[in-house]
């Protein structure tokens, strides 16, 4: 009798995501745009790679012992990914989340079994980072993987995302990913530069709304320790309106239902494709649109105003 291959655990299905050409989105036929569909990971985002890698590394080093409580600042995807890993490996998890993230992200965290601590909505992700660091400092029983400073984050992309792209393609001229912690850009970027030395590594980053920039001074800004901006060749700011236009184009022309950062990345990929005479642009679409449905990005008339008041990636 024929037996079919199967995975022993959902965690074995993390990574090896599909790469698809976005033919209708390329501004010129001589430039191909390919997208890595990270929404196909088990919890629906690229962060599954990071969550598994951080927990594996902490278990291997002996730092994370059975029953210890995990703590992580996150606006959603990393928390949801960690919640899956935590559930299957038997750890309780607390996520520090800006109070104004979408209801879908909050609900998903709860459904996967995470406890939630709210951070001030007007401080964006920086506020979640600050509060999580304070909590970890005050209670040594927490184990904080801390994606912003954990080398397992870029390593997951060096060994996973980057290798997968390098093996799939003979040529990559531009690599575009969203800038959050910097993990994807640092890890996959470094691996791709080994295979394609002339590659341009480009970051797309969100122009934050005034209302989530309520920091006391610029010195309260935050640069993730794993991010080395000198390793980026381009760093492009993408407005909310451009991200929305990008995610609508993705769905309308290609049938790809992407999240907000995917819209931004597609916008940046098209802009960079315009600059090439010919070549291959690879972009990373970090998650699907499901967690943003309540925000009405695909059909509401005036979504930009409401976008200003929350953290999207």
């Amino acid at each position, binding site marked *: 009798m024929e037996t079919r291959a199967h995975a022993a655990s959902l965690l074995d299905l993390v990574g090896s995501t599909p790469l698809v050409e976005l033919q209708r989105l390329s501004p010129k036929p001589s430039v191909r745009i390919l997208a890595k569909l990270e929404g196909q990971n088990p919890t629906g985002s690229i962060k599954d790679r990071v969550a598994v890698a951080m927990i594996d590394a902490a278990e291997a080093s002996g730092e994370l012992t059975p029953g210890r409580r995990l703590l992580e600042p996150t606006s959603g995807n990393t928390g949801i990914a960690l919640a899956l890993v935590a559930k299957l490996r038997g750890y309780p998890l607390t996520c520090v989340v800006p109070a104004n993230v979408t209801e879908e992200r909050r609900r998903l965290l709860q459904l996967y079994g995470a406890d939630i601590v709210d951070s001030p909505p007007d401080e964006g992700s920086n506020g*979640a980072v600050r509060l999580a660091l304070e909590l970890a400092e005050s209670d040594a029983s927490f184990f904080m993987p801390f994606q912003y400073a954990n080398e397992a984050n870029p390593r997951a992309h060096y060994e996973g995302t980057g290798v997968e792209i390098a093996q799939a393609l003979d040529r990559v001229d531009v690599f575009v990913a969203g800038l959050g912690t910097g993990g994807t850009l640092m890890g996959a970027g470094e691996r791709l530069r080994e295979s394609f030395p002339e590659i341009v590594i480009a970051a797309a980053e969100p*122009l934050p709304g005034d209302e989530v920039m*309520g920091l006391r001074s610029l*010195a*309260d*800004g935050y640069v*993730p320790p794993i991010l080395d*901006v000198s390793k980026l060749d381009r760093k492009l700011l993408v407005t909310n309106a451009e991200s929305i236009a990008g995610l609508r184009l993705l769905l309308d022309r290609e049938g790809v239902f992407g999240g907000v950062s995917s819209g931004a990345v597609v916008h940046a990929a098209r802009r960079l494709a315009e600059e090439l005479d010919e070549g291959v642009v690879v972009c990373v679409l970090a998650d699907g649109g499901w967690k943003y449905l309540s925000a009405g990005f695909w059909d509401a008339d005036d979504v930009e105003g409401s976008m200003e008041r929350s953290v999207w990636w």
Partner: protein
Amino acid sequence: MAAVRIPPTLRAEVGGSRELEARGDTVADVIDDLVERYPALGAQLLQDGELASFVNVYLGGEDIRTLGGLETPVDDSESLILLPAMAGGN
């Protein structure tokens, strides 16, 4: 004159303005022009003559750190955006 967008955290230093006009052939010159008129900005934007690490400056929507840094030439028609470095990463 280049338009410079000021983030909420710096508006107190510039009398509440969201956007200012400033003169200069390079990003450094534009910042010097601003600091001359609003001296309190200097300590926030610069450290030892370099751009402070928690400050990002964008010219035409691109980070000057991946362009020519403070020496990046500025066209009159271009706009600059000053932003605090923000944690992202979902």
